[in-house]
């Protein structure tokens, strides 16, 4: 929507500011951060650290993409962190159960585990979507409720104890493996981002999500079937969170109800918001959100490398979040209203 406005504006309006507005401040900040850190600490661009950053950024980016989609449609998904945990323990439990029933049949074991994990995410997404779209309860409250319920179910299944019993090949051959020099999580994140960008720009679903978030009434009048698409956004968000849970499980080698949690949920919202997704709905681009997830991960990594007290680190995150959104808000205000 923003780009359409800029493109429609007369030529002389394309100033430095509008270019910055189109690309955003974020990539510039990212480059600055990377350059600065590389100059300060050689460890930063060492292979181990880069792989570490990519792995963590991929996990966050996948969750943040789903979160962004929900927010663009005018909603909220507080349950993503709990879904990460649920999918992790469901995957591990399903794999252990299948392994007991069909020992040695690795393909079946892995397929059942992944299907169960993604399925558990889809169920939470359907519940969220149903409550928001059909019962018309605010997304914040619904996902606040399902967050508590989902976390409770995850803990009930495991009693808080890590679940083992996954095939070796799932952990060593997939979770901790690399292909073409990149961790598997990074490949999957790239695929997710590309698919999501395509969906956002080239599919009816993507356009409708913008329409619903921008102006529900106008979308209804234009004949958009609101309910189905809102349910769709919540299902996508939960399934992506479940995917992250599965990747995390494969990396660590056990299913744990302590994965994800509030931290992952808050970080995914932070990534979406710093990535220019408006909480008022209707505005936001997946690719910028992915960059923002990378930025947040590198920022955390940089603070670690600079030996900033880990207790003090949240302060930086908080200040940067508020500053990024405040700058965005102020620059929008200084632009003339159409």
């Amino acid at each position, binding site marked *: 929507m923003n780009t359409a406005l800029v493109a429609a504006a007369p030529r002389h309006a394309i100033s430095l500011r509008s270019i910055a507005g189109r690309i955003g401040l974020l990539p510039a900040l990212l480059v600055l951060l990377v350059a600065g850190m590389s100059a300060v600490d050689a460890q930063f661009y060492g292979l181990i650290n880069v792989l570490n950053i990519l792995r963590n950024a991929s996990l966050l980016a996948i969750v943040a993409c789903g979160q962004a989609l929900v927010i663009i449609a005018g909603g909220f998904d507080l349950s993503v962190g709990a879904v990460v945990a649920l999918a992790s323990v469901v995957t591990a439990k399903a794999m252990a159960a299948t392994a007991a029933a069909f020992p040695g049949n690795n393909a079946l074991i892995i397929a059942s585990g992944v299907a169960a994990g993604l399925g558990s995410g889809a169920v939470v997404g359907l519940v969220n979507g149903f409550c928001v779209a059909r019962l018309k309860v605010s997304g914040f409250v619904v996902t606040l409720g399902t967050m508590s319920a989902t976390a*409770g179910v995850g803990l009930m299944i495991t009693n808080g104890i890590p679940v083992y019993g996954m095939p070796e090949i799932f952990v060593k051959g997939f979770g901790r493996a690399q292909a073409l020099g990149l961790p598997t999580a990074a490949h999957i994140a790239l695929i997710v981002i590309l698919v999501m960008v395509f969906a956002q720009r080239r599919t009816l679903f993507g356009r409708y999500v913008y329409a619903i978030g921008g102006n529900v009434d106008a979308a209804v009048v234009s004949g958009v079937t609101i309910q189905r698409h809102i349910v769709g956004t919540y299902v996508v968000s939960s399934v992506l969170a479940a995917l992250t849970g599965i990747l995390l499980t494969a990396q660590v080698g056990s299913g744990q109800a302590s994965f994800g949690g509030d931290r992952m949920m808050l970080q995914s919202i932070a990534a979406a918001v710093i990535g220019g997704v408006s909480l008022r709905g209707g505005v936001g681009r997946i690719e910028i959100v992915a960059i923002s997830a990378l930025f947040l991960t590198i920022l955390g990594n940089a603070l670690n490398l600079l030996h900033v007290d880990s207790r003090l680190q949240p302060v930086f995150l908080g200040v940067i979040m508020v500053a990024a959104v405040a700058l965005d808000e102020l620059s929008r205000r200084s632009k003339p209203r159409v």
Partner: protein
Amino acid sequence: MSDLELTVAAKDTDRPKLALSHRLWSAVLPVALALLLLGFAAVDHGVLSPANLLNIAQQTSYLALFAMAQTVVILTRGFDLALGPTVSMVSVGSALAMAGATASGHGTVAVLLAGLSAGFALGIACGLFNGVVVALFGVNPFVATLGSYNIAIGIATTLSSGRPVQGVPAPFSQIFYSGSIFGLPAAIAITVAVGLGLHLLLARTVFGRSLYLIGTNPRAAAVAGLPVKRILVATYVLCSGLAALGAIMMTARTGSGEPNLGGALSLQAIAGAVVGGTSLAGGRGGVGTAVLGALFITILSNGMNLTRIDGYVQMVVLGAIVIIGVLLDRLRQERSA
């Protein structure tokens, strides 16, 4: 003329029906509360014992206070996600101030004053930050308070090095926890007094009424000449100030400054407010809804504890209750509209 008569007649027959269904719907939560208590009592007689009822009242008083704080900002279409970390920060800050004042040999009164002023100063600072970012910079309250959530957690854990802060003097715990006024335990007495004051503020003062107007229609509020920005800043300061008071009461209870005291309080307080019937769309709610919601959640978890329901199952039940509570409230709104 006959038309007019007809409409008048129709209105007259409609009115009592509407009023009745409205009354029925607004009684849903109190009735549910009573049923809940009786249901738990049927399983475990201890639920209705005077000792447990007093216990419920005492537990409710903390959550009610935080739900009231949250309600004040929710009325203006806001949120305070930072409420929990604010509580942690105030707890640590006031405990440190009191330990420091004791160590430098001040008298009891000076030590208590140091703790209170440090606590309230931190709380008010947090509220000012939230209010300024929301009102003056126009940042969405969710993001603004998510930012201060992180900042307050960082400050709380850094100040305390992540460990409980000892050195809270006994008189402090006596005044804000174990003492009693007119036979009421301190926590209940303070919450009742604050609740009454806040109710008067919301219902009887220009400031209070303007919160409702801002929540219902911010443009109308601005056009009507209300200083919306200043009122919003004051609202967030009021919210954090109430949170600071709650933090002081909780610190008195534990007897130490706890960097994790706030924990999940932000969302619990929002849940309490919302279950009681405070609307997240703004403009609707008050002290009554906050207390009712807090009472409901406390009775539910107290009853589940006494009937030995698994803690993990309790999380699922609470989650479902939040959604159902809000759903019922929406239906009630539709009926009475």
